[in-house]
């Protein structure tokens, strides 16, 4: 177990827990804590941003790359401690430090996917600049979404090299990534969501056709599970796009806002996390997360509860939406419990085996 990394991951997952609590507060549950305001920044910066920062720092193995996640942890502490403005500055520092990391990677190993990863970091910086400038959440949240979408896009493009795609297909994806930035600009500047919606649909279709998950879904065990998570995530990305296309300017607030954003953050991003936790956590924490078929259950709960949530949003049914939101949180909690449970079971089994042979 790599102990030095543990505080970073503990902080990231603590942020997830508090962000989930904040989310439940926001959708109508009477909970103590008054942390509803922190839901977005905690999810995007303190949890996801820190996690991604840790992954890059582990990969680079250079002390300075740990600066970004460190800023993220400091930011979340300030946010929850009531120092809101200091928090936004720390989150900005977190994103700028991460931009430097992605720039360094793109400089040393230039490639289309390295450039897209840098673009993702730039989107995050823009979002956090708007946050530090006290701009309203609706004007910056899609920049956070773009940070996540482009980070995942860069990794999927990198993996898709294994499929030996035609040059045109790769260039098309690069174009879609650039268009995503344009879409975000239009959202912020003019409240036009339809162009962004069209881009998300385009990306979802590209990924659904060209991602290596189309191949690995035919295998068994963990590769199949990861592929199922990826492909279902792409369906949610496309759904987010369709909602933006259909909703237009209505996506600035209310049910269209809730539905489209959570299709991205839960349907797409959280699916990715479920699919990759058994792969990445062993690398980051030096602890195996053995795959077992029970992990499909939290995935099913995630997708089912999101389906109900989006339906409730479109039907203007806030009570149903609240319970669906609880279902989203239950799915995440179930995944953590099942993943840890698998590790525990493996530990017990190997303990028995070694004492039996002793």
């Amino acid at each position, binding site marked *: 177990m790599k102990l030095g990394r543990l505080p970073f991951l503990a902080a990231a997952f603590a942020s997830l827990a508090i962000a989930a609590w904040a989310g439940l507060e926001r959708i109508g549950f009477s909970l103590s804590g008054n942390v509803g305001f922190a839901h977005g920044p905690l999810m995007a910066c303190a949890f996801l941003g820190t996690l991604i920062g840790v*992954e*890059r720092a*582990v*990969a*680079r*193995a250079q002390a300075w790359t740990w600066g970004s996640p460190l800023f993220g942890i400091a930011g979340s502490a300030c946010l929850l401690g009531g120092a809101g403005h200091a928090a936004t500055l720390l989150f900005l520092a977190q994103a700028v430090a991460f931009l430097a990391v992605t720039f360094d*990677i793109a400089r*040393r*190993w230039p490639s289309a*996917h*390295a450039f897209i*990863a840098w673009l993702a970091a730039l989107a995050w910086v823009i979002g956090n600049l708007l946050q530090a400038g006290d701009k309203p959440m609706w004007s910056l949240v899609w920049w956070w979404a773009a940070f996540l979408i482009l980070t995942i896009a860069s*990794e999927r493009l*990198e*993996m898709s*090299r*294994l*499929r*030996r795609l035609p040059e045109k297909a790769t260039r098309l994806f690069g174009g879609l990534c650039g268009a995503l930035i344009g879409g975000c600009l239009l959202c912020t500047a003019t409240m036009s969501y339809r162009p962004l919606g069209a881009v998300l649909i385009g990306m979802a279709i590209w990924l659904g056709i060209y991602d*290596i998950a189309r*191949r*690995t879904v035919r*295998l*068994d*065990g*963990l*590769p199949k599970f*990861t592929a199922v998570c990826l492909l279902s995530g792409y369906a949610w990305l496309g759904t987010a796009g369709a909602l933006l296309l259909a909703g237009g300017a209505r996506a600035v607030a209310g049910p269209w806002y809730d539905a489209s954003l959570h299709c991205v953050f839960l349907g797409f991003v959280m699916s990715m996390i479920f699919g*990759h936790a*058994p*792969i*990445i956590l*062993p*690398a*980051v924490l*030096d602890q195996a997360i053995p795959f077992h078929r029970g992990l499909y259950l939290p995935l099913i709960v995630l997708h089912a509860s999101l389906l109900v949530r989006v339906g409730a949003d479109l039907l203007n049914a806030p009570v149903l939406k609240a319970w669906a939101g609880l279902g989203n949180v239950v799915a995440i909690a179930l995944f953590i419990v099942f993943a840890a449970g698998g590790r525990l079971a493996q530990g017990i089994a190997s303990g028995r085996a070694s004492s039996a042979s002793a």
Partner: protein
Amino acid sequence: MATSDEIREALKGVIDPELGVNIVDLGLVYGVDVAPDGAIHVRMTVTSPACPMGQWLTKEVEKAVAAHALFAPSVKVEIVLDPPWEPSMMSDEAERILSGGRP
């Protein structure tokens, strides 16, 4: 004493967790050197330097080599990033699984 071919064969047991394909077929193993005293040195790469899998892979390779060459005085696994990995380094078998065969 294990030969470098035997060790390379043993490394086919190290499988990329997302792809379900072993690291030899992926073309990640650049070289296996066995010194006259039996010390083993594996040179390998990763598909992306930005991915945190490198250290985990190194450990898996060390375990696989140590399990196969029980009496080797030392096992060293080195990640090299030059030349950078390219899809053409994959074996036909990996190509078949991942991209439906070479064109």
